[in-house]
């Protein structure tokens, strides 16, 4: 195993960092937006133009033939600069299409999605329901071909700006993937009422496609959270050096510097796990264990780093004018995206008896 970036990867990192700095939220005095990010068309087209959506896909479908490692590198830089977009959502949709769609659907949909000319996002969440890869309350009239969907998905981030949705829906006891254009969208709510839809590939492949698509989404948000931690820690360290109380910098209090050291440990554990997931998903995009472990490590590290970053700043960390709270807010949203820490622990626990020990080199 080798975690060093090659020259191309370093160049990608620099390019995304530069892009992100141009689209980062402006320094503001007075009120700033809080909560879920609104779609930023400029940032979005810059991301698409740089080919960041295309990174993990093959050239046959308009991809860049790079890999999930590059996705991790790019998403980390976006997270560091607080450029919150539909990146993970669109990648997930692309993954669902790439791993689940027919050849014809792949050829028809992916090139436009990957170059940014059309935005497709996935719709998983159902109101009143916990996170699940399976659909329950949105149902499809049939498993294959032209069908209709009925039910509600919510919240579906970026549904209001998407051209199409990839929707999980129930058919009998199974969950299939469906492409929809004409749903009734208001904000993050998507309603289907005998709405025409097209089955994505065959329902026999849907479970595996969902796993691979979501794995891609998990990698992107985990890397974004890593970036957020990677920015929140240096801000905290800098603050400890400059903020004075009792006539000395806060850094003179060992109880605080030791906690900064613990934050660093959490950050680096998250970094190793995210980069490993990037490599492992490039080798096996269906690997649910790798994705769940990454989500758990990032979830726990993120919670630790996010909460401590605010605490060590004191009151100033609570303000919207200051970036540290926004990083914590974004890390929190990521925790609740694609299954939280407990959801992934429960998933991993189902196989606890199946392996005597953990072996990352196996």
């Amino acid at each position, binding site marked *: 195993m080798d975690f060093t970036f090659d020259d191309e990867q370093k160049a990608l990192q620099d390019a995304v960092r530069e892009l992100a700095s141009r689209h980062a939220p402006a320094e503001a005095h007075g009120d700033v937006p809080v909560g879920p990010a609104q779609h930023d068309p400029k940032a979005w087209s810059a991301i698409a133009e740089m080919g960041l959506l295309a990174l993990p896909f093959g050239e046959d479908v308009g991809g860049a033939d790079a890999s999930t490692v590059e996705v991790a590198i790019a998403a980390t830089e976006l997270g560091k600069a607080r450029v919150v977009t539909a990146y993970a959502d669109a990648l997930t949709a692309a993954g669902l299409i790439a791993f689940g769609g027919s050849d014809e659907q792949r050829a028809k949909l992916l090139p436009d999605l990957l170059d940014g000319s059309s935005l497709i996002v996935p719709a998983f969440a159902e109101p009143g329901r*916990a996170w699940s890869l399976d659909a329950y309350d949105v149902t499809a009239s049939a498993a294959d071909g032209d069908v209709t969907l009925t039910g509600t998905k919510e*919240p579906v981030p970026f549904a209001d700006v998407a051209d199409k949705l990839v929707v999980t829906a129930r058919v009998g006891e199974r969950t299939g993937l469906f492409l929809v254009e004409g749903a009734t969208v*208001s904000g993050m709510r998507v309603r289907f009422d005998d709405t025409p839809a097209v089955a994505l590939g065959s329902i026999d492949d849907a479970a595996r496609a969902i796993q691979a698509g979501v794995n891609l989404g998990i990698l992107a948000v985990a890397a974004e959270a890593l970036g957020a931690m990677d920015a929140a820690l240096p801000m905290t360290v800098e603050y400890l050096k400059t903020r004075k*109380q009792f006539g000395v910098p806060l850094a003179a209090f060992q109880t605080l510097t030791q906690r900064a050291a613990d934050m660093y440990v959490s950050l680096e554990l998250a970094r190793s796990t995210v980069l490993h997931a990037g490599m492992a998903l490039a080798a096996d995009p269906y690997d649910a264990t790798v994705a769940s472990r990454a989500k758990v490590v990032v979830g726990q590290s993120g919670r630790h780093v996010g909460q401590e970053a605010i*605490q060590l700043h004191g*009151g100033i960390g*609570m303000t919207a004018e200051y970036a540290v709270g926004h990083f914590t*807010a974004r890390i929190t949203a990521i925790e609740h*995206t694609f299954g939280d820490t407990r959801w992934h622990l*429960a998933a991993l626990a189902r196989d606890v008896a199946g392996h005597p020990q953990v072996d990352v080199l196996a």
Partner: protein
Amino acid sequence: MRLQMSDEDAAFQQRMRDFFTTEIPAELRERWAAGGELEPDDMRAAQRLLNAAGLAVPHWPVEWGGQDWTQLQRHLYLQEIQAASVPPPLAFNANMVGPVIATFGSQEQKERFLPATANLDIWWCQGFSEPNAGSDLASLRTSAVLDGDEWVVNGQKTWTTLGQHADWIFALVRTEPDAPKKQMGISFLVFDVKSPGVSVRPIQLIDGGHEVNEVFFDNVRVPADQLIGERGKGWTIAKFLLGNERVGVAPVASIKRALATAKEHASATRSGAGTLLDEPLIAARFVELETQLSALELTVLRVAANSHGDKPEPASSILKLRGSQLQQDVLEFTADIAGPASLQWSQPDDTDLEAWTALATPTYLNFRKASIYGGSNEVQRSIIASGILGLKG
């Protein structure tokens, strides 16, 4: 040691419960429980109902509306008022400036301020912290200079909670700039925030709300008789006030109620063929938090029974430290239960999501403040280390 409450105390508890659940409008309590913001008029209405029944300031001296209860009764009162989701009396009035004026004020000041304070006819805000005086409160720089029979106040306070609604401010100001120690030379001054020279600027917090403010003083003239206690002895008053503040911030019953509400939400959130409450990790977290909360409540009862008079015990730091942690843990867990729905912070008309899910993340983020204000958790640990364990840092 005795396991059960006496019949008398049980009857007291029932009396409190009956009052809070029948005399305070349910609509007000429901809005407070849902975490929605209350208008200042709602807060006034609630406090006035309590005050009329002698239940707004029971810990004050009897002659100013207090009740001469035992510590256990005080605890039962807090338990029931929180359990019924009654909007509590404004802390700045009931727990901070009221006890200060009752203890350190002149007879004239008591008469002037205490009844109006108990009845929320004056809405007070706390002007302690400054940009460069947070944990190190004694380094505060806002100055007051005597000019004839008026103090002239200049400087800045910050983090002033609900300052936008306040009528009056109680502020720590430096009156003796040449005192040998920074703790000396501080005085406790109260004045009308509508006085010429006072300006208030809101600060937006990470949840989007505006509960705190910066307050600026530019040659604000304050009558000399509005200094509470002895000139230059404000630090003693500040320590007294902060100790009281800490006792008030272990809202065990509120946390219990929040956890019970979270449990209702979990059992109403479907997961697979069952609900979230059927998920082993969710169920385990509930019982873990319930167990931790019961340990805190038992400690509150044990500490309350042992403390005498008005003097706060160093052990009250345990309550602030652990209380804020558990409050934060419960809110974090509530956001986890909201899960994907927590990504939406607003409540548009056309949503199928439950209203509480939109508040889950902002509330979780907002309550990161609980381990920062009222003496941060680091400060509480220092008090325990030096005050109880004899470990001078």
